[in-house]
């Protein structure tokens, strides 16, 4: 059983009369890529800020690496790297200078070569001396990731890391996170609205809503209880829909395009569906079954 890296118990935080977080609890194991999900205003940002000592919770406990954040803040942060919301650096300083400034506060400051190497790694090679004020959104994200990884932290907290990145950038980040997990055994907390990303990358997750943790656990285990979403590409979509409505009147059907549709259905009923469509003379070009986190998320949040 993996060691618990983070244990959050019943934290709550009020800003004036507004309860941003009411009762959030979850834990993260060593080596997890942990998805942190919730709709806007759920309390994700407040929870992350509490974890990183930017906000002091009104109640509850936060332990990271077996130590309380309230009493061992510096020890914990020395092993943690994070991007919270958008990465903000000093506009009047260059990319290199910005990293140098922050890295000077690490216990072991990286050398100039190491900083240059990291900038190269995140795709900012050749832009070391350019001022941050001139960077695009994607470049700012990359610099933020560079700053997060520069001191080789054990725990990495990423809040919307792929926002503003081009498709290649998104893939790069995804691959990076997987490498961090698989090759370097880092623990990553990933907060994102890109549920497809979460579904691909994360092994565990928590969903919070209205300041309360709703569900927590292994992604696969949670999704296993849910209906699959089957995408069909057929020769006659309208006819297929009629057949499906007759056989599976309760199941949700979604139009995708002229020839494709999706249906939520139990795994065991897929062969039945296939038989009904074939018997009705409908040609099936492709049939693809998957769980959709999006649906699960919406279901949990609305529960």
């Amino acid at each position, binding site marked *: 059983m993996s060691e618990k890296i983070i244990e959050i118990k019943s934290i709550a935080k009020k800003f004036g009369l507004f309860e941003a977080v009411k009762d959030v609890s979850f834990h993260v194991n060593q080596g997890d890529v942990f998805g942190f999900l919730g709709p806007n205003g759920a309390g994700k940002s407040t929870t992350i800020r509490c974890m990183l000592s930017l*906000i002091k919770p009104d109640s509850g406990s936060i332990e990271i690496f077996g130590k309380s954040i309230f009493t061992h803040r*510096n020890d914990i942060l020395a092993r943690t790297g994070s991007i919270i919301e958008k990465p903000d650096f000093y506009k009047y300083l260059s990319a290199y200078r910005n990293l140098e400034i922050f890295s000077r506060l690490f216990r072991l400051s990286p050398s100039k070569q190491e900083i240059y190497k990291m900038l190269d790694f995140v795709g900012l090679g050749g832009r070391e001396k350019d001022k941050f004020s001139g960077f695009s959104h994607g470049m700012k994200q990359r610099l933020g990731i560079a700053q997060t990884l520069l001191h080789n932290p054990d725990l990495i907290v990423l809040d919307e890391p792929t926002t503003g990145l081009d498709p290649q950038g998104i893939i790069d980040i995804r691959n990076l996170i997987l490498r961090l997990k698989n090759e370097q055994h880092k623990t990553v907390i990933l907060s994102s609205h890109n549920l497809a990303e979460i579904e691909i990358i994360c092994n565990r997750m928590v969903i919070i809503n209205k300041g309360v943790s709703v569900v927590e656990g292994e992604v696969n285990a949670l999704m296993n209880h849910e209906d699959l979403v089957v995408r069909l590409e057929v020769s006659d979509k309208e006819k297929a829909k009629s057949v499906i409505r007759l056989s599976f009147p309760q199941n949700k059907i979604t139009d995708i395009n002229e020839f494709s549709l999706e249906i939520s259905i139990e795994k065991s009923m897929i062969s039945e569906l296939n038989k009904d469509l074939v018997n009705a003379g409908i040609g099936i070009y492709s049939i693809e079954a998957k769980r959709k986190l999006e649906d699960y998320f919406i279901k949990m949040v609305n529960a």
Partner: protein
Amino acid sequence: MIFLRSIYNEVIKIALKPRSYLGIAAITALVGVILFALKSDGMSIISFVTSSFEQTLSFEGNVLNGNLVAFIILQMLIVQIPLLIALVTGDLVSGEAAMGTIRMLLTQPISRTQLLLSKFIAGGIYTLIVIIWLGFMSVIMGKLLFGSGDLMVLNSDGLVILQEADVNWRYLGGFLVAFLALFTVSSLSICLSCFTDNSIGPIVTTMSIILLFTIIGTLDVHVFDSVRPLLLTTHMASWRSFFEDPLPILDIKNSILILLIHNVLLISISIYVFNKKDITA
């Protein structure tokens, strides 16, 4: 070790911020204008000061000399210099919040207290540089352009003429006390900076406080007598006491003590507020 590195960081940030040079440039321009004006027609300023004496007496010697010029410059800039300090130091905390870098800074393994103290120290270093530059521009340039000589100072209890050999140590003492006074301004602006995420607010508030207190201090009315000893600006001007004869040592010590108390209070309040602050920016 991290504390020292943090101080270095803060100094670098100030040094690389364009606004920091506004103060230096402003001092250069202001002093340059005053030097030019005095070189052109400085005697008329002196005549205005000594007018009631000049009916019966004549002042022989190099009256308009570098020492007097430096004194005139310091008197004229007494309100402006604190504003130039606040322009940079008022931004040290709130500017980070406005930029968003406060989030990045406070997730580094340095305590909030250490981080804040490093900002105070960096603000102090900037203040020292400003004072040294002001000293160079006023005293050194003044002496280069006008020569040296006895210093004629008009106080509210009379005219004092200090001999040349007796002036340099007074300027040294005066500048040291002025540095303490300006460091207090820096502390005030940083303290105000801890209360807000707005970059301009602390700067404007500091300027307003300085102006208001200066006006109260200048108005020669009894109703403010009880308030005046407590005002920061009253003791900010204690550098001027070095040019009285006899030297009011007790008054100077009192001012230094009050300025130190101000600093301790302001720094303590800042540390308390900064440590309790929730970073939502």
